[in-house]
């Protein structure tokens, strides 16, 4: 049996201590306890208060800083959002402008192409008409020449066949008469 076992057995053998009230401790215990508590509180207030206050201030400052930072971040985000929205607006305007410009260029190209094709067609039509007219004139001239030649040949044959002796004599007599009457 060791010493602790011996003490426990001795105490159990002596029975539990008794106080004067079952609620209130002894007066000395109250005094010493209150004094000790006050001293502890004073010490806490004196030595722990500034630290706590400082910690609270730092925490408040940190929270304020976080709030300010959040505010700034929000403002930045809002600015960024505005910028993005503006950029989006610019992109839409640029898209509209590019589309309008492309439409205008396409319209101009179409108009120019139509004008050029119309002019070329007019030129071709004019040239074709001139060629047709020239061909018609050429054909007409050739036809007239052919008709004239055939008419000449036919006339010569008809005249030759109609020149009998009496006609020949009449022509000679007519010539002599005309020459004689010339002066």
């Amino acid at each position, binding site marked *: 049996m060791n010493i602790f076992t011996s003490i426990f057995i001795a105490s159990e053998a002596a029975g539990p201590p008794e106080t004067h009230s079952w609620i209130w401790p002894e007066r000395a215990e109250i005094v010493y306890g209150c004094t000790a508590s006050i001293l502890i509180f004073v010490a806490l207030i004196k030595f722990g208060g500034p630290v706590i206050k400082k910690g609270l201030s730092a925490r408040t400052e940190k929270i304020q800083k976080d709030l300010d930072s959040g505010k700034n971040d929000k403002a930045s985000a809002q600015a960024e959002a505005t910028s993005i929205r503006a950029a989006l607006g610019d992109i839409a305007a640029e898209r509209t402008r590019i589309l309008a410009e492309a439409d205008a260029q396409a319209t101009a190209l179409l108009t120019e192409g139509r004008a050029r094709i119309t002019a070329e067609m007019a030129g071709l039509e004019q040239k074709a008409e001139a060629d047709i007219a020239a061909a018609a004139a050429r054909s007409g001239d050739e036809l007239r020449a052919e008709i004239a030649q055939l008419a000449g040949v036919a006339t010569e044959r008809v005249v030759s066949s109609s020149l009998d002796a009496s006609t020949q004599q009449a022509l*000679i007599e007519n010539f002599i008469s005309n020459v004689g009457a010339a002066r």
Partner: protein
Amino acid sequence: MSDARIDGYARAMYEIAQAEGVVNEVEKELYTLARAIESNEQLRNALTDESLPVERRQTVVEQLLGGKASTVTTQLVSFIVGSGRGRELPAIADKLSKRASSESHREVAEVRSSVALTPEQQQRLSDALTKATGKQVNLKIIIDPLVLGGLVATVGDTVIDGTVRTRLDQLKSRL
């Protein structure tokens, strides 16, 4: 051949004809032969082809003119052809004709007709041309079927054209 040489031949032939007293006859026959040579390529070749012997060409002349032309004309033409001047015979005949006309103070009047003219028509035509040109004319009638009908007379630089051929040509031009 040069004009001087043609003129020389014409003058010599004229003087021979004059010496023989047959100028008009020779001139007329030569003129007729000249026109025949001009219009007949075969005859022209026969008289001018130098590849043929001279005797052959002279035989052609004698066969052609014998009995149809005077002896002087035949000999003169034979001489020209024998000299190798057959190609110039028309020009020599023209010169001779002009010379003969000039000697008799007349102008050669070349008349082309498709049919022959009677002596009476020739006389009246000669008178008419004399009246029209104011010159005595030495009428030369050439039968030319190409004129078709009517007459064309050339007196010096004057041309009086009344042929059917010319009328037809004018009609063709107008057509």
